[in-house]
């Protein structure tokens, strides 16, 4: 039986783990593989995405090794092309898109609204199985011959000319898309219908606003990718020419359909991380978020505007100049809500009570790196400038700043923050801070030189390159080795902490939020009694207002 811990009491007593909680209520493989408990499903996802992260990371290591020298001397060109294709596919579809929603979202969405589970627990489990099935296809492809279309699989190369496992990859990605859609459906319905009494929309933690906005994109964007994949598969498998110019088909139509999903997809990857940052900045400044309404609306605005900018990937594709104008101006507009968030997070620190535990260090890192990445997005939105930097390493640097410097830092910050809640154990703070620093340094060394490489003209997806690009490439590869070490360290200490980490109390951070009002780890039903909410989100001041 859990007891709701009262804030302040944690520091007096030595924390003791609750007798029964969701991890020890049942043992055995079947209790995990057939669970409908959102918390266990979150951990299933945690294990799978970690595996895929290291597989995708392994391919990245090989890529950076090859790129240390101008000639293609480590692997053959065909192999190299498969390496970057699989790196992109795995990192995007099997790591980044699920990461925060499927691990932290699954764990926390019900808890943050005071519910016992998501609206559709069995769909949640199905979602994981679908993800694993899609992942199996991709693993199969990685082992048996690879695929070399680039993760963007542009036609007609992918439909007519590629000689690799395009169909299998298409099937794998198609299947995995349904995992995204089901998660999105679950979150939307849960947030709409299962909020605890007193938890109005504008009292929701911003983590939930972020996941709601993300779920809108998951639901509305993913199906377009699905049908695009179907069309590519039909053309490749049955030789019916939808994108084949010889039949009057339009290869650029593929790009429109593809980017209509794939641009919103990047917001799927960043919005949840932004939600995490709002939680971290408030807890570790012990202050209410600055501009709650603005951050909440900005999340929804990003989701909506994000559907209107896909053509900025196509400024030199033979798209009309006037279409380019429209997509350019909308792309500048979609940057504004993100800027608003950064300013509001910064303002939250003002006159706060700031502490520097690991989650907060990741939040700081996020703000710095996301700001940099976001600003370089403006370079790409500028039509005349994009002509020069499109399809160069400038773009590669930009999206890695957002997805790695942003999304992954947000994910790691959140993982550290909620680790005690999820496992009942604390991670070792000293090692964690060191790892965060190593990651930050390694990241910048890896990707900043790539901005310079891009402006100099080094194209993307190049296996070999002219000698004058070597110095910057070596810097980048050196940084990657540091970054790799940085990522390995948390792997080690998180696993270590499961057995040897300090036992965590219900609310080690003295944070606001319903999830901290139950034990660490929580019982299967999350709360002994449905909580009733009587205060705003992040009601850090005045102290003393408790949730019953």
């Amino acid at each position: 039986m859990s007891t709701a811990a009262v804030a302040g009491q944690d520091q007096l007593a030595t924390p003791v783990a609750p007798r029964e909680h969701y991890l020890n209520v049942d043992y055995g493989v079947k209790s995990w593989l057939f669970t409908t408990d959102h918390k266990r499903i979150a951990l299933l996802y945690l294990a799978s995405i970690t595996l895929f992260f290291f597989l995708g990371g392994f391919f990245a290591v090989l890529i950076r090794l090859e790129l240390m020298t101008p000639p293609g001397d480590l692997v053959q060109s065909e192999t190299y092309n498969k390496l970057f294709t699989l790196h992109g596919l795995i990192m995007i579809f099997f790591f980044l898109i699920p990461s925060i929603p499927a691990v932290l979202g699954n764990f926390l969405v019900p808890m943050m609204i005071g519910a016992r589970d998501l609206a559709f627990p069995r769909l949640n489990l199905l979602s994981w199985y679908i993800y694993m099935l899609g992942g199996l296809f991709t693993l199969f492809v990685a082992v048996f011959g690879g695929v070399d279309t680039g993760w963007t699989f542009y036609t007609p190369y992918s439909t007519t000319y590629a000689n690799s496992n395009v169909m299998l990859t298409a099937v794998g990605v198609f299947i995995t898309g349904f995992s995204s859609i089901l998660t999105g459906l679950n979150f939307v319905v849960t947030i709409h219908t299962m909020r605890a009494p007193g938890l109005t929309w504008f009292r929701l933690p911003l983590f939930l606003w972020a996941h709601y906005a993300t779920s809108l994109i998951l639901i509305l964007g993913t199906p377009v990718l699905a049908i695009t994949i179907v069309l590519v598969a039909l053309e490749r498998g049955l030789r019916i020419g939808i994108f084949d110019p010889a039949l009057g088909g339009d290869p650029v139509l593929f790009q429109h359909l593809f980017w209509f999903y794939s641009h919103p997809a990047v917001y799927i990857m960043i919005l949840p991380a932004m939600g995490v940052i709002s939680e971290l900045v408030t807890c570790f400044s012990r202050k209410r978020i600055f501009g709650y309404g603005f951050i909440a609306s900005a999340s929804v605005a990003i989701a909506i505007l994000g559907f209107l900018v896909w053509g900025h990937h196509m400024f030199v594709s033979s798209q009309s100049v006037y279409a380019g104008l429209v997509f350019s101006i909308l792309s500048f507009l979609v940057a504004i809500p993100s800027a608003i968030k950064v300013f509001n997070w910064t303002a939250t620190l003002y006159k706060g009570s700031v502490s520097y535990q690991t989650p907060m260090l990741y939040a700081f890192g996020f703000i710095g790196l996301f700001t940099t990445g976001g600003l370089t997005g403006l370079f790409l939105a500028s039509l005349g400038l994009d002509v020069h930097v499109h399809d160069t390493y400038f773009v590669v640097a930009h999206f890695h700043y957002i997805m790695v410097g942003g999304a992954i830092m947000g994910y790691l910050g959140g993982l550290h923050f909620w680790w005690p809640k999820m496992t009942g154990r604390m991670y070792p703070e000293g090692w964690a801070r060191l790892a965060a620093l190593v990651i930050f340094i390694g990241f910048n060394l890896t990707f900043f030189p790539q901005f310079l490489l891009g402006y100099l003209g080094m194209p993307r997806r190049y296996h070999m390159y002219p000698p004058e690009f070597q110095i910057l490439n070596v810097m980048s590869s050196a940084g990657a080795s540091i970054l790799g070490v940085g990522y390995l360290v948390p792997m080690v200490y998180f696993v270590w902490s499961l057995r040897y980490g300090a036992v965590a109390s219900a609310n080690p951070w003295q944070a606001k939020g319903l999830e901290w009002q139950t034990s660490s780890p929580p019982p299967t039903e999350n709360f002994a009694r449905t909580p009733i909410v009587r205060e705003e989100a992040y009601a850090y001041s005045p102290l003393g207002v408790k949730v019953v």
Partner: protein
Amino acid sequence: MGSEFSLLPEQASTIAAHVDALYYFLISVSLFFAALIFFLVIYFAAKYRRRSENEQPPPIHEDLRLELVWTLIPLGLAMVMFAWGANLYFRLSRPPADAMDLYVVGKQWMWKVQHPEGQREINELHVPVGQPIKLTMTSEDVIHSFFIPAFRIKMDVVPGRYTTTWFEATKTGEFHLFCTEYCGTRHSQMIGRVVVMAPVQYEQWLRNGNGAPGPSGEAPEVAGARLFQEQRCATCHGANLGGVVLGPALDGLLGRPVKLQNGETVIADESYIRESILNPTAKITAGYQSLMPTYQGQINEEGLFHLIAYIRSLTKTGEKAAETRAEQ
């Protein structure tokens, strides 16, 4: 193309400095805002670090004026960036009227360039300095992209259609040409050399017939006239090229507006001519029947360029001159 390390690419075209100016503006704005945020975060984090466990931060959590300020200023700056970039983009898409026409065919994994005087090159592009050059490009297979970093120009090369770009080189020298849309195994080897020469050297190079495989020195319109005869286009479009019943007249066609059967009027540009040869039923000229067969599969992209050059020559020099050359 030096092998020395540098942080910025050479500026070798008339537009390069303008692109770089926008780049520097964006860098300045970015540096300003990045520095501002970095400074504020570090400053606030240090100044307001937690000193005691029970300290009570004041309830400051909203300020409408501040929100408006930091919304409207970035918005204004963004609009400046947009307008500047859009202006550049328009300039990049509008070649000057006196541009020299070159044709480019991209195919896995090489670039084929055709000069108006007849020179052909593979993976090289020789041009005179100070002369606007307009490139009309297409692909024989997958999508490629034609990129000259020193000129700051780039345009995708798409199968089934023509795309165009233009530049005017401002200094002599050699510059990189890259394919920059992933196109398969040897994508990173689909690179070349742009050689910019003084006009005198360029003329000399043309005369010496450097690097031209195939019938060297044959002007494209001559090759086009030959192809026109081989394919018996004259059957409908007439040897006299005027007042023929079966197919529309071709002299003076290029660039002229054409009224179609469905009432629309289009300009007969290169894309129109290419489409009319490959897919004649797409745009049927008013007053004519749909009789023209398709030449899809019978004429390749280079042949199409040659026919277009031939039809263009009918506009410029009159049909007699082209025919005389064909007979030689």
